[in-house]
């Protein structure tokens, strides 16, 4: 049993002591009200830019870290959005980048001076970003429904392949429909969104961006969890479990599959718009297949249907490769230098970074073999995979 793997390597007395201790800790954690847990979590997260470094002054997380956190945070938002489609409703969507691009171009087309769509000075609408932010949810949902209507009657692998195609079509459209989208050099020069008090969310304002992304994650997670625990979420789960039985119980399966698709698309478009805002540009190259694959992979590795799994998956797949660039990473790996005689660990780390997709692939295979329900499986899936599959 994966639960008791410690019993294999630890002496019995230590193992039992350990399990009572973890059990007690779990109960203690469980007795804390949800609101307080959230509050503490939010406090810890919002103080991240100000943690003082106990060893030798300065901050623990400087701007380099915050830049990584911003990207990881963006992928957490995307992961939570796609998790609605893949984890809750069980629809494998390999073209999620289409919605990401929709959000980015929605903003870029209206805010970039290079945009072929508008010819008025964009400075005349200073609060454009904040007006468009909620709009991106609606536009994303509508695009999700439009793309969903033709493909959602398909099931399983067929759906995966068609959505894969959609993702690529969107990118090719952005490259080739030059007079609408600005073509392959993209749309650039988007002004930083203004903040109250004369401040701006510049790409270099990493602390502000970090706070903004954390808020975004809380928002997406809130939406996802509320939907999961509702009548809509149950309909999704029923469709995932047995589509025919769900229909026989009165669930309009097409409608609820569209709901899942639209919600995923809305959150994806939100992420895309934020991406365009902190890049200050939208370039078709940023919307290739790899984005979709990254998001699906982080969900699968982290644990399908679980928000914490998505967080862990994003940290592993998006955070660690960037971390390997840091001096701290080479310092850390330097400790192992004496253990590895004929190699330079720093060089290794860089090799690992450049070849990270091979590592991802290997990691995916490993996770599928060792923990098929992901690193942090959702409660119900945990039960699903740890009981013998005898029930018909």
């Amino acid at each position, binding site marked *: 049993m994966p639960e008791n793997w410690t019993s294999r390597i630890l002496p019995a007395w230590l193992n039992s002591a350990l399990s009572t201790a973890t059990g007690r800790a779990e109960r203690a954690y469980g007795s804390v009200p949800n609101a307080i847990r959230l509050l503490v979590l939010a406090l810890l997260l919002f103080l991240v830019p100000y943690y003082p470094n106990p060893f030798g002054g300065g901050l623990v997380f400087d701007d380099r870290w915050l830049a990584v956190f911003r990207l990881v945070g963006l992928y957490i938002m995307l992961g939570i959005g796609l998790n609605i489609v893949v984890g809750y409703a069980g629809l494998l969507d390999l073209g999620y980048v289409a919605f990401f691009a929709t959000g980015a171009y929605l903003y870029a087309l209206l805010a970039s001076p290079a945009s072929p769509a508008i010819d008025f000075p964009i400075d005349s609408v200073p609060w454009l970003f904040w007006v468009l932010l909620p709009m991106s949810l609606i536009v994303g949902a509508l695009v999700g429904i439009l793309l969903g209507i033709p493909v959602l009657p398909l099931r399983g692998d067929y759906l995966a392949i068609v959505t894969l195609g959609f993702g690529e079509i969107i990118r090719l459209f952005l490259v080739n429909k030059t007079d609408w989208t600005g073509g392959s050099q993209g749309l650039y020069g988007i002004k930083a969104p203004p903040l109250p008090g004369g401040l701006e969310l510049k790409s270099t304002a990493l602390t502000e961006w970090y706070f903004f992304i954390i808020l975004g994650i809380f928002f997406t997670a809130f939406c996802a969890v509320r939907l999961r625990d509702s009548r809509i979420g149950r309909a999704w*789960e029923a469709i995932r479990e047995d589509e025919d039985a769900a*229909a026989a*119980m009165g669930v309009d399966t097409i409608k609820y599959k569209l709901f899942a698709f639209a919600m995923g698309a809305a959150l994806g478009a939100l992420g895309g718009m934020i991406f365009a805002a902190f890049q200050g540009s939208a370039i078709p190259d940023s919307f290739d297949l790899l984005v979709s694959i990254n998001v699906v992979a982080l969900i699968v590795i982290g644990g399908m249907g679980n928000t914490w799994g998505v967080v862990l998956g994003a940290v592993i797949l998006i955070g660690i490769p960037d971390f390997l660039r840091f001096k701290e990473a080479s310092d850390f790996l330097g400790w192992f230098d004496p253990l590895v005689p004929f190699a330079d660990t720093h060089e290794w780390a860089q090799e690992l970074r450049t070849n990270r997709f091979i590592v991802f692939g290997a990691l995916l295979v490993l996770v599928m073999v060792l923990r098929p329900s992901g690193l942090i499986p959702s409660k119900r899936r945990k039960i*699903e995979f740890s009981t013998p599959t005898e029930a018909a």
Partner: protein
Amino acid sequence: MSAAEDALLRTTGLTKRFQGVVALDNLDLDVKKGSIVGVIGPNGAGKTTFFNVLTGFYGPDAGTIELMGRRVDWLQPHEIAGLGVSRTFQNIRLFANMTALENVLVGDHVASAFVNPGPISSPGGRVGFRDQLAVIAGRMKHPLQMLASPLKWGWEVVATVAGLPIVRSTEKSAVDRSYELLRFVGLQGRSQELARNLPYGDQRRLELARALATGPKLLLLDEPAAGMNPQEGQAMMRLIRQIRDNLGVTVILIEHQMRVVMGVCERITVLDYGKKISEGTPQEVQADPRVIEAYLGRKVAAEVSGEAASDG
């Protein structure tokens, strides 16, 4: 009261073919409101196909289905469920990784809606491409109506995410109803168990509770007592009678256990190769030589009747 008003379900000339195999052949059937009707027949006689056509999983190739005077053939399965036809499956098809309570709550899906889905727009009966265009054109005349459903969808999602009081109150009453149904089928205390972890008999009961949660007028049971021992079969018979007597639900059941069929059904229809070969009370059907022939083969049937003749 005339026969037409009395019939809850009426099929006329119902036919379904699968690439040359005639699964249902010109089937006429009337089911009275408040009755318990059995459908029996040898394996492959078309019994389950009959249920699948009734519940909209297949459209019939010919013939009509009327539910309380309304054409329901070629409607979508969820539309038919919404009109009050619910079913269980031959090989139990619960939502295995959801709890017993959640299973019943999915059955309550239609009743727990806080947004009115609106009337079913499809007319029933096979609709050709031209008819569909006409329906769409008809809707185009009312732009407000066209706008209504996306707005309703948006409202449904936004209200759910916001957790408005109306959402919470409908959810609470749905949970209350579901607990009550679990109690009705005798699954009190097991509501938080995963459906897959329930013992076989309880899974059958849970499927029944889930089907009842849709608030059916007509309940289709596909082999409800399959794999049960005589005591469990007896309990299932009592439960089916209770469903009719206490909830006023009309029941059609497919069953191979003759003890159950003859014990609980008021009328029985016998199918063979998709054709109705006999119909009547249990006694009439049991005495019908065509039924004996269908079950035992012509030769044995002749011997049986021969013996009966020599005995008499």
